[in-house]
């Protein structure tokens, strides 16, 4: 299994990383909080931690810590547009139910 980026998501990540001028890739994960259990973490990564699991998708390095992986294994991160709103979206097969906002979920 793996965590991947859609081509569109990878394109945006690469652009943001370039503009930011530093960082080695993207860190995905979860933390416990939010209205229904766990919340997604989506951050720039400046360094690889020893326990990190590394993926590579469309040329972008993706880092996930081992505790988070079971929650998001198989996820594809996409970049979409919904009306005027645009941004990243986790397509996560592990989710049983999510709060209406989509920022936190249950497995």
């Amino acid at each position: 299994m793996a965590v991947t980026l859609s081509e569109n998501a990878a394109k945006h990540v690469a652009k943001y990383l370039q503009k930011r001028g530093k960082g080695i890739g993207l860190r995905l994960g979860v933390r416990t909080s939010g209205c229904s259990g766990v919340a997604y973490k989506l951050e720039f990564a400046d360094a690889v931690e020893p326990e990190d699991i590394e993926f590579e998708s469309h040329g972008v390095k993706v880092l996930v810590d081992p505790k988070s992986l079971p929650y998001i294994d198989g996820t594809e991160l996409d970049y979409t547009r919904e009306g005027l709103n645009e941004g990243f979206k986790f397509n996560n097969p592990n989710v049983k139910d999510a709060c209406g906002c989509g920022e936190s979920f249950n497995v």
Partner: protein
Amino acid sequence: MALLHIAEPGDSAAPHQHRLAVGIDLGTTNSLVATVRSGLAAVLSDELGRPLLPSVVRYHPDGSTEVGYAAQGEQARDPRNTIVSVKRFMGRGLADIAHRESMPYVFEDAPGMVRLHTAAGVKSPVEVSAEILRTLRHRAEQSLGGELVGAVITVPAYFDDAQRQATKDAAKLAGLNVLRLLNEPTAAAIAYGLDNAAEGIYAVYDLGGGTFDISILRLSRGVFEVMATGGDSALGGDDFDQRIFCWILEAAKLNPLSAEDARLLLTSAREAKEYLTNHGVAPITARLNSGERVDLKLTTEVFTEITKTLLTKTIQPVRKALRDAGLSVSDVKGVVMVGGATRMPQIQRAVGEFFQQQPLNNLDPDRVVALGAATQANLLAGNRNAGDDWLLLDVIPLSLGLETMGGLVEKLIPRNSTIPVARAQEFTTFRDGQTAMALHVVQGERELVTDCRSLARFELRGIPPMVAGAARIRVTFQVDADGLLSVSAREQTSGVEAGITVKPSYGLSDDEIANMLKDSMAHSKDDALRRALKEAQVEAQRLIEAVQSAMKSDRDLLTDEQFAAIDTAIGRLQAAALGEDRRQISQAMNDLEAETREFAAQRMDKTIRKAMAGKRIEDLPGTEASTETKGEHA
């Protein structure tokens, strides 16, 4: 479902805790809204992907409004109810508005700010601007999927307190929380400074639709400092349209126009101007409602010729700002071009020639201000990125001070001081037993109150009665980050306080600011002499009062002869003080002091005798410091 953005390491927001903030460039011709997403500032476009919102509001008889392109499209058909360039009216009285005879609006002069008669009733410029801001707020909330915590709104550096306050009021009316008002050139510098991170002196040349601003900035170690500002808030791309419009009238030999036709031709003029950016000749064709036809060709040469004076008008403030900053052209490391009007080739050329270098224009000149404002808003909303530890400094355009005796100005905060700033100074009473003090806050560069602009007056009451000069009144001037001034006065021994926040109901026009600055230069020598004279007159008056007060309380120490002699000297000084000869006043003061020396010594002896009964007077120092003792009471 909320869409996510990439956060800085360790900085992921908890769900529903994203602090959405935007930067808004509320422009004369066009407005924009921008935000920072995944660390990158971006302008938010509308449903059709258009980033700009024309700053145009059309009012319908039922009270509904159209804003932006829809309103702009109706400009020619319904000019009276379609308000364009409303920013020119913000915080302005009727008399301040240039070219109003060629505007299709029905104005009404109202205290503080002009009003406009529309089909939906009488509207203030604040209400019209609020419509534009509300439209941008809705766009931002749809784009970001949530409510905004606040916005940074940009204003021209030249906006005075009334105009800034009007902008804040408009934002409030539109339901926006203003995190801060930011000077447009400073916002542009943020956009450039962060992206290019280049240190040195920069000039920001901002020619927008209706305002021209020049700012001299210093970028060093991540700190932006505005060293000087200048400009003309009634000069912009609109004026170039106006020149073409006048040229069309003349070239086509047209009869006086209806409001509709005037609007139509102004639109043609603007299109021709924009066309000339990439072409050598612009065709101008129009069919007027009057039945007349216009079919002309405007060449770059003619366009450059008819707008030459406008170009010169932008270069003069540039020179002055450089002089204010104590810099020459060779100190300027780069020139940033802001505002759609800077796309005109003759402007790029003229600015390049003046600064002897190619101006920077690698960011879209229409967007830089909004992008910088978004970056600032993001920071103020608490979404601080690693490394974003820069400060932001702005300056006040004219010195702020207080009226002192004799109609002189004591400047507390000099022009071009960086804000926010607070300065305090101690003042004292002029007369014995004085229990109240009138404070008159003025703005300007001249030495005399009559030559400066009055901002506010207030009174400090309840000062305990003391001899003249004994009360200590601390006056504090504070200018907040938005450039708004508050003044407070506190008597130090009793703690009585009074204060005022200056929101002048009526703004200074740019011509007034420019003239005030020009006057201060032209009259600086003159002013210094007048100041010296006034000071001498005030000093003379103080001396006379002190002596008279002493003569009254210690009449018994004086022989009739001495009394008469002092009285004569007082008379001479009074006469001299009414004249304009400073040396004569000074001479008369010396005479009076000489005449009263013995009297002063006797008074001091008397005081000391009282205080130190039993000691020998001869052992004590007595006759020095004669002037100081005159004001004292035993």
